[in-house]
């Protein structure tokens, strides 16, 4: 067993599902010959050929719309957005067609949309956003945000097997930064959070790239005697509310953190649920941490001031503990 990256884990998961089920296919811009802008589908064209690996015209709405149609007919498309940001061009297909089909007329839409998202790579206003909250508020869509190599693989596989449209946000900052050794069949259920680290002084509820930073901060704080419980949500919809509440009931203090902008980010939903459902258990205000309410800036020093940094997380945790 050798180590693989987060990016390779996505590739492995997809490949295993392609081999297992002839209905699975990949569709997107530059995913064939080029292997995708981030090389996630590298080698797939050679292994599976066209049209199962389908390089498309530059048309996000067609990619997503065709995926909806093929999925309704029983295929299992895995559509790639070259960057998550470009999903804005095919927005309607997801929120109106894919999301509402089953509720309206019982049609299953077993499709996955892969969305390379997030910052830390100086992508600027159009190549670094975290658009998960747009979709997490749409009944009928599922939303997952893997933060580990294992979850990257386990969630892409579960997403492909799911009979609903699943938006799979893969974080670009984690692509080659995370490595792990995986053995056997890796399947991670959608809708189950993960206690990434147990702790008793404060809960950090987070997902995506902030799990990475949060775990580093937690390690650091442990050496200072503060035990942070880190909850990696993994899935925003369905949300594993119970695991969140349980942690809060245990630590009585909580920081909710994401890389997305703060106002209207999904952290508001989580904080609101905690405030409503664990009110009696709170010894401190539910603290929220997110990026500044601006577009994502390009220059390094600006982007670093924009997104929550380890130091910000640490400060918020310590203040919450000290409250």
């Amino acid at each position, binding site marked *: 067993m050798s180590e693989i990256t987060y990016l390779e884990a996505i590739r492995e998961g997809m490949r295993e599902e392609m081999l297992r089920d002839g209905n699975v296919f990949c569709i997107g811009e530059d995913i064939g010959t080029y292997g995708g802008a981030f090389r996630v589908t590298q080698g797939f064209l050679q292994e599976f050929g066209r049209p199962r690996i389908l390089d498309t015209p530059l048309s996000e709405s067609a990619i997503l719309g065709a*995926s909806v149609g093929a999925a309704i007919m029983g295929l299992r498309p895995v559509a790639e957005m070259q960057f998550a940001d470009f999903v804005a061009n095919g927005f309607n297909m997801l929120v109106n067609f894919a999301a509402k089909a089953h509720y309206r007329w019982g049609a299953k839409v077993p499709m996955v949309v892969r969305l390379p998202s997030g910052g830390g790579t100086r992508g600027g206003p159009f190549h670094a956003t975290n658009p998960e909250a747009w979709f997490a508020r749409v009944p009928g869509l599922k939303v997952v945000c893997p933060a580990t190599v294992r979850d990257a693989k386990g969630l892409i596989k579960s997403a492909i097997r799911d009979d609903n449209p699943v938006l799979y946000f893969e974080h670009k900052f984690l692509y080659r930064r995370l490595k792990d050794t995986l053995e056997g069949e890796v399947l991670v259920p959608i809708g189950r959070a993960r206690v990434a680290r147990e702790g008793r002084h404060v809960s950090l509820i987070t997902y995506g790239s902030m799990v990475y930073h949060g775990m580093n901060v937690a390690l650091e704080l442990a050496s200072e005697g503060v035990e942070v419980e880190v909850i990696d949500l993994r899935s925003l919809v369905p949300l594993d509310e119970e695991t969140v509440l349980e942690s809060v009931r245990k630590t009585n203090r909580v920081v909710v953190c994401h890389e997305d902008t703060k106002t209207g980010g999904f952290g508001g939903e989580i904080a609101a649920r905690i405030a409503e459902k664990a009110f009696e258990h709170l010894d401190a205000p539910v603290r929220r941490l997110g990026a500044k309410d601006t577009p994502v800036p390009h220059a390094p020093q600006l982007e670093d001031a924009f997104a929550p940094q380890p130091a910000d997380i640490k400060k918020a945790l310590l203040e919450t503990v000290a409250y």
Partner: protein
Amino acid sequence: MPRTSRKSSEASFRSTTEADLKRHDAGFLLGLYRDMVRTRALDTRIEALYKQGKLVAGCYSSRGQEGLSVGSTAALRKDDVIGPMIRNLGSMLRHGIPMTMVLRNYLGRANGPTKGRDGSSHFGSLEHNVIAPISMLASLIPVMSGVALSFLMRKEDRVALTWIGDGGSNVGDFHEGLNFAGVLKLPFVLILENNQYAYSTPIEYQTAAKDFACRAEGYGIASSKVEGNDTLAVYEVTKEAVERARGGAGPTLIEARTMRMRGHAIHDDAKYVPQEMFDEWEKKDPIATFAERLRKAKILDDKIAKRIDDEVKAEVEEQTEDAFAQPPADPAHEIDEVYAP
């Protein structure tokens, strides 16, 4: 000045002659006629129910366009898949959707096709190879391309067909969907129903193009133009397109010229349409003109016409009764099926 048609040359819109009619089986022709009559009868009943305050909300009429829906759908096999739009009631009926399904949906019934969750003819049925539209016009074009893509992937010789309006054809999805289908040579047919208006907006305000069919060239696909009220001509051009698609030669865009004979929806009195335009098109009514032709060809006579009328009337009665007998949508199950299990 009342406008009556697109600027492009009249001759280029295909129509059929008596000789063309004779090439077809009388039973087939009577079937077309019958399905048009069924469509209008159901449409008329729905309007009546609206006026009686029985519908959940408004309704959309396809009056005057029955031939277009029935003729084009007649060119398909039952295992071909259609994506009907709001003015394709005739397509749904022709493709096998029972009237009660439509009525149950208009009445918001618990065991209607959407269980009261959506209205009007806004539903689909995989059993009948019918995909539901969404309201956002042209969205069905990429989606039906995806349906066609599934045929390509599975090496099935089926065809996907949908419709779009003169207005809806200006949405970006028209472009993305047709271009996508073109580059993959998908078995896909798109019928553009140019009924002169999009809500209150005449085609001159929709596009400066001389016609809509010429857009096909921009996607490298075939096209044709047809008189949409000549049901047989619609059948024939669609049949050609369907055969081309089934043979692997790729998609076709068909522009059918017709007229929306009602307002956009029941609440709209369409005062913005010059009366002369309605008058002129009334003379081209697809059912009346087709009946006339069938009579001339001795395929239809008073007796057969009456039999068909009676049967259709009975069908509408029975199906309406059935729909009313169904229980209303049930809020207890309201949040049950947002997700597939």
